């Protein structure tokens, strides 16, 4: 009988009531009395020298309050980068300045050159059109390999190269890996592209800057996944506003997928302009602006080699990746192709020798940073594709080849610096065979063939690192922040709870699942617990939500704070019951003395804490409010096996996903329904990457896929019902909930399964010359590959 409340229950998402009835409070719903509006003038060339900005005509237009240009930001800090990578020669990465408004040069289409603040949005937009930019166009560099080779066309002249860093991991392994590959019985090589994506959250970015003269207080309302991080970065590094004079609010946020982690120039601008004009200033991104200013994702070009011995054991993996940084270093960009990618190259396999080389490259394109999965999808895709290719070359079953090489003993220290605490890869492999009905595949293939279609089955086994992250570890790796999480549990006098968390919910269902944890611990109904998040004024300093960390890290902080509450409440209860603290038990919302029928209700204890007439004041303080900061001791390592069945129309190259199944090991599960929803969403995004989505620049740096006419998002008819199973559970060993995180798995596990299925389908139709198709596998690409 499934539970109907607490941990393990599929409690309905309470936040959906407001999301689905139009009563959410998104940033664009916030309008501050007297607000002005900003329209940004953005570069329409990819690379050029600014020789003049003529604002005279625009300034004379109705409603215009002020036009800002780069010169207004001289002396103001640039946007900081939160992660410093050290290259394989011991040099720190190149870190060119990232101005709020362009200084001297523009480096990508969409870069902000000027900003018009006016009384109304329409007046701001009209005047922005009248700002005349004189930009002497320079040759643009888009292709990463050309960028590295070029010494003439430089995105940042002052650093003398387009190479941000050349990272080797683990550098000491390099010779051993080269030797192992040289002596291997078989080496499979694959060159591939992990396509550039635009995150496209349903809600575009919005920023409202406000300034209160009376208190010299700035407030920024913004679409962020981590308001405290924005406050720290913007306050300390860009605008020089101390935290006690700066409040950042991220209210309801309509999807983030990583792209709302970062500190953006627009939000710094609105905060700055509000102070300068003593007026609130609002910006709401248009969808066109989102395409050319939200940080993009992925964009890796990789060569991977997998070496095997005579018995098909993996002996070495060697990779070389070019990772696009875009024109500037976005907040966490340097960490994505390195520590979130190189550390995952062992996958689920006991390959003894691994070497990863990553060249991060500046180009005249929008900055690239974390997008759902962030580094781990890139690692999984190349590894799972090359294993599939190796299985074909060797004529062995792809799942058998994987199983033969699975890690089976835990903890397992990989040659790429991480230690997996738990996992059972055979269990998820068994489970996927069952739920995806491998046994019935041949029958389904024959049915497809009878319709003139080719059917393929693709599998993928993934591991990822979630719950980021141990602060002392990431500090060594170059992070300029700690990655703990915080929680304050405030018990109200009559027993209800407000839980203030540093995590941020932008679709994940925290308001539902976090109360399940607390309810389980105290034994009071979930509806007595409210989750407060998203406002630096009323939550403790926390690091926010990304890297599938909210439950594993933020949830653990809530557990720790709740434990403190329970300890104190137990003391109060012992006093009220005139019993020894050691004999008090908390069960179903009541404290009782073990072995007696004496008990006191939760609400009576909490009331006593705030109305301490009968209270051990000499021993403990009144009140019932506790804060905890939780810093994890390791990453968590969710894993799983995915299976995809596609049909390919050999006449057109059209691919349709017919079946998709996911067997995940997320450790313990708090709310199965929310977990399934997270996997569904991730798989839909992964299918989008595999078959549809592609961000395209032309050779002059013009963004061609800048609207939904040219950038294909997955729609309902592209995604089948996804069969999800999370019954394989090896609980995380180092956090109190035993949870691992489920937010990104779907997007990590699905792209290789889809492409492996497409290749399998083509081989079944005799197109055995096709060894790889780059994503997105559009009809055009598939058909062209079939023609040879």
């Amino acid at each position: 009988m499934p539970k109907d409340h607490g941990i393990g229950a599929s409690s309905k998402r309470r936040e959906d009531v407001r999301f689905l009835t139009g009563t959410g409070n998104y940033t664009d719903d916030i309008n501050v009395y007297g607000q002005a509006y900003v329209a940004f003038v953005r570069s329409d060339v990819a690379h050029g020298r600014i020789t003049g900005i003529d604002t005279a005509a625009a300034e004379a237009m109705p409603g215009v309050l002020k036009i800002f240009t780069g010169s207004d930001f001289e002396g103001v800090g640039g946007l900081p980068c939160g992660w410093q990578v050290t290259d394989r020669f011991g040099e720190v990465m190149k870190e060119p300045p990232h101005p709020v408004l362009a200084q001297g040069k523009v480096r990508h289409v969409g870069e902000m050159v000027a900003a018009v603040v006016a009384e109304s949005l329409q007046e701001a937009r009209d005047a922005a059109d009248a700002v005349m930019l004189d930009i002497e166009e320079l040759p643009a560099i888009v292709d990463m390999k050309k960028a590295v080779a070029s010494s003439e066309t430089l995105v940042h002249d002052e650093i003398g190269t387009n190479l941000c860093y050349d990272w080797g991991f683990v550098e000491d392994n390099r010779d051993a890996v080269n030797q192992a590959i040289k002596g291997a019985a078989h080496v499979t090589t694959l060159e591939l592209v992990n396509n550039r994506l635009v995150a496209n959250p349903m809600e575009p970015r919005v920023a409202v800057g406000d300034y209160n003269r009376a208190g010299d207080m700035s407030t920024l309302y913004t679409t962020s996944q981590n308001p405290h991080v924005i406050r720290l970065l913007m306050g300390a590094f860009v605008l020089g506003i101390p935290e006690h004079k700066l409040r950042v609010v991220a209210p309801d946020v309509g999807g983030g997928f990583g792209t709302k982690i970062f500190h953006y120039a627009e939000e710094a601008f609105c905060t700055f302009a509000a102070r300068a004009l003593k007026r609130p200033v609002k910006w709401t991104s248009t969808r066109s602006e989102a395409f050319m200013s939200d940080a993009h994702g992925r964009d890796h070009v990789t060569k991977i080699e997998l070496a095997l011995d005579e018995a098909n054991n993996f002996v070495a993996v060697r990779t070389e990746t070019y990772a696009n940084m875009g024109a500037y270093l976005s907040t966490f960009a340097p960490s994505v192709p390195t520590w979130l990618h190189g550390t995952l190259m062992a996958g689920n396999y006991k390959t003894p020798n691994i070497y990863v080389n990553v060249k991060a490259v500046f180009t005249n394109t929008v900055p690239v940073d974390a997008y759902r999965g962030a580094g781990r999808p890139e690692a999984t895709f190349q590894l799972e594709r090359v294993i599939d290719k190796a299985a074909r070359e060797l004529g062995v079953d792809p799942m058998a080849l994987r199983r033969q090489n699975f890690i089976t003993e835990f903890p397992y220290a990989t040659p790429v610096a991480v230690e997996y605490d738990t996992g059972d890869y055979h269990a998820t492999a068994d489970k996927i065979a069952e739920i995806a009905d491998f046994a019935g595949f041949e029958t389904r293939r024959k049915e497809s063939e009878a319709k003139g279609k080719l059917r393929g089955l693709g599998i993928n086994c993934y591991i990822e690192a979630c719950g980021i992250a141990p602060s002392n570890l990431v500090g060594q790796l170059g992070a300029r922040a700690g990655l703990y999480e915080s929680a304050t549990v405030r018990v109200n006098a009559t027993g209800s709870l407000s839980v203030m968390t540093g995590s941020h919910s932008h679709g994940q269902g925290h308001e539902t699942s976090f109360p399940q944890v607390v309810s389980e611990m105290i034994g009071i109904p979930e509806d007595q617990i409210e989750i407060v998040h998203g406002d630096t004024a009323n939550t403790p300093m926390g690091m926010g939500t990304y890297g599938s960390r909210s439950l594993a890290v933020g949830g653990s902080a809530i557990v720790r704070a709740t434990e403190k509450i329970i300890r104190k409440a137990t003391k109060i209860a012992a006093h009220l019951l005139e019993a020894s603290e050691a004999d008090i038990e908390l069960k179903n919302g009541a404290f009782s003395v073990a072995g007696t029928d004496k008990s006191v209700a939760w609400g009576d204890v909490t009331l006593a804490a705030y109305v301490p007439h009968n209270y051990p004041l000499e021993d403990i303080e009144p009140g019932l409010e506790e804060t905890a900061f939780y810093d994890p001791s390791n990453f968590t390592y969710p894993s799983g096996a995915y299976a995809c069945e596609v049909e390919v129309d050999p006449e057109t190259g059209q691919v349709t996903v017919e079946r998709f199944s996911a067997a995940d090991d997320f450790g313990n599960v708090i709310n199965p329904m929310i977990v399934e929803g997270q996997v569904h969403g991730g798989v839909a995004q992964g299918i989008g990457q595999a078959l549809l989505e592609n961000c395209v620049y032309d050779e002059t740096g013009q963004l061609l896929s800048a609207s939904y006419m040219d950038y294909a998002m997955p729609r309902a008819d592209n995604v089948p019902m996804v069969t999800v199973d999370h019954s394989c559970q090896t609980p995380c060993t180092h956090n109190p909930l035993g949870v691992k995180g489920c937010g990104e798995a779907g997007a990590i596990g699905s792209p290789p399964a889809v492409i492996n299925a497409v290749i399998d389908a083509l081989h079944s139709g005799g197109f055995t010359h096709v060894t790889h198709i780059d994503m997105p596998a559009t009809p055009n690409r598939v058909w062209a590959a079939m023609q040879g």
Partner: protein
Amino acid sequence: MQMSDSREIQADRETVWAAILTPEVLKTCVPGCQELTGTPEEGFEATVVQKVGPVKATFKGQVNVSDMDKPETLKLSGEGKGGAAGFAKGAAVVRLEEAGEGVTRLHYDVEANVGGKLAQLGSRVIDGFAKKMADQFFTRLQEAIEGPANEADAPEAEATPGEAKKGWFRRMVGAGGGAA
């Protein structure tokens, strides 16, 4: 994007050459041209209204003539700024070859680029659009010299009445010898 094509014009090279360098002819030939002033030596100022896919804009810009080797080859280059719509620029290298008595073969190699919203929203239609623009330009040039192939095809911009089968340019400059 790049395009190349050629066409035969029933006129000698000098006539074709002169036509290309005449502002009135250029104005008639550039699709959507509202205004064109200037001289070949100092360049022309042009205002062009065009709609590319979903983007409609007024482009203001410069057309310059360079690399002139009369009457064989010249280069027309232009750049137009369409404000919020972005920009368009292009260059056409035109070569004139004698192709018999009173007949000129005109070759052109066009390279065109667009930026901003034009590229972002119009990229799917831009190749076809640029080809159409180039096609129209040289068709109109041909018609300005020869006269329209038939009445119905006469460009809208051309309101000159008179002999249907003689190009208005040739009438204007008084060049003799009708091709038709």
